[in-house]
């Protein structure tokens, strides 16, 4: 159950380091344009470059390796799947063939290449996203999104949901343990039923909490207006500098990405 808190909390982003100090708008701008280049790249170097730079950057702020790997586990397994599937299906030239329980599996070169290409894009893209999320707290993100003209209502909902998932999750885990200690999970059928009860209680809780929270908001003058006081710091020189830096870096990346290797 700790898994939940672990993955969704922005503990790393709350630390103070050179990356978290960068203005969120700059980071968003970088991430979006780099993701675009990553998608567009015609070789595996650009994505792998992004991957390695992300790792170096994340290590430079002392992010534990296991935290990075935990986040990347799912995409990596997805990437490997794609590699296998593509390797088995695309192309003609045999590269390796082996037989497992009567099935003859043949990996082909073209397929493996294009699989590797996609694979690298997955890794590159994911590492960029992780670098962003490991260095940006949710409130900064909200502020940044607002600057990018994302509708206010959506940002409010994002902040609200993010705040309360942990609380509701803790309540659910207490209920879960309470059920478990009365043997509510003795068999598969009971477990399904207990999950239903738990989820029903969860919705009821959420409903009551919404009412109480609304009362608390109402007495502080809420009448359907905004709930966020977005306080973006003004642009600094460094921020302009990094913005302009991108203008020089992007063409280079694009040029490199255009080199067709295979």
């Amino acid at each position, binding site marked *: 159950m700790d898994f939940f808190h672990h993955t969704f*909390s*922005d503990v790393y982003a*709350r630390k103070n380091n050179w990356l978290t100090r960068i203005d969120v708008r700059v980071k968003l701008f970088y991430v979006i344009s780099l993701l675009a280049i990553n998608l567009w790249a015609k070789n595996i170097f650009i994505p792998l470059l992004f991957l390695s730079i992300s790792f170096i950057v994340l290590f430079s702020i002392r992010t534990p390796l296991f935290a990075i790997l935990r986040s990347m586990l799912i995409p990596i397994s997805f990437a490997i799947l794609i590699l296998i599937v593509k390797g088995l299906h695309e192309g003609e030239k045999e590269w390796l063939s082996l037989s497992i329980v009567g099935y003859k599996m043949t990996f082909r070169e073209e397929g493996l290449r294009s699989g590797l290409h996609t694979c690298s894009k997955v890794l590159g893209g994911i590492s960029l996203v992780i670098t962003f999320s490991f260095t940006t*707290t*949710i*409130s900064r993100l*909200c502020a940044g999104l607002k600057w990018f003209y994302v509708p206010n209502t959506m940002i409010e909902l994002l*902040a*609200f949901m*993010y*705040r*309360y998932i*942990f*609380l509701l999750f803790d309540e659910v885990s207490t209920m879960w343990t309470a059920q478990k200690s009365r043997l509510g999970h003795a068999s598969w059928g009971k477990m399904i039923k207990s999950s239903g009860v738990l989820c029903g209680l969860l919705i009821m809780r959420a409903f009551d*909490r919404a009412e*109480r*929270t609304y*009362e*608390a*908001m*109402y*007495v*502080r*003058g*809420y*009448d359907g*207006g*905004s*709930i*966020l*006081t977005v*306080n973006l710091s003004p642009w600094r020189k460094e921020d302009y500098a990094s913005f302009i830096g991108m203008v020089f870096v992007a063409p280079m990346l694009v040029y490199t990405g255009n080199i067709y290797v295979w």
Partner: protein
Amino acid sequence: MVILQIRNVQYQYYDGTHALRDVSLDIRRGEFLAILGPNGSGKTTLLKHFNGLLKPMKGEILLEQKSFKQYSSREIFQKVGIVFQDPNDQLFAPSVWEDVAFGPLNLGLSKDEIAYRVDDALSLVDMNLCANKTVDALSFGQKKRICIAGVLAMKPEILVLDEPTCGLDPAGVTSLMTLLKELNGKHGITIIMATNTVDLVPLYMNRLAIMYHGSILKAGTPEQVFSNIEEIRHACLELPQIAQLMQILRDEDHLPMDRLPLTVGEARKFLISRQHDNHSWPAIGLKYSC
């Protein structure tokens, strides 16, 4: 001077529960009023009337001699701040600073004024250093303080709290109550607090009201109210521990007292002074059975 006047208020929930039967109560400017009462006696319901969250079905509420109806709801919110029991319901913004700024923002204040008020409120509750923390990273007692700051940032004249000490450890209770006492004494904020902890009352409050079954059973200073033990017991309450001891000494062991000491300090004073006037020890008061 009476700042808030509750006149024959009745309230019934949609399901027919008579939560308030007939409540009348005067709250004076600058006082620290405790509202005691058993579970379900209507404390929370009453508190919600104090800033118009619930509207009385009968009777009315006067703020500074004017009926609530003559105020806009914004004016009332500004004058009366309310802090509910569960701090998690009240802290919805991602960071402490934003949460405290929520009230002033809704008042439509200027940016500078908001920043000033937030910093001010945070320093009142001694939480300046946490301004940039996320709400989840705070302890229960700290959350409670931020809730109070969020209300203080609206500069209310009256602060209403619903069981603020529940779930806090003794040190936390003392620090919270000291904070409230200071807000009440130094900053002249009228404080109304619903609580179940009888022991706190003689230490911090100068007036209390006992609710029972939707109406006010009794109101007055702690000495007045705690002097009638039957009534207290009837309302499912207890005397404060010290008062219990002194009451037994008075009633069972016939130690004469003009008034029941309620706090440790008072009891000590009384017990020490007893030594001096030996003549008044009753000779027969020695039969006891424990």
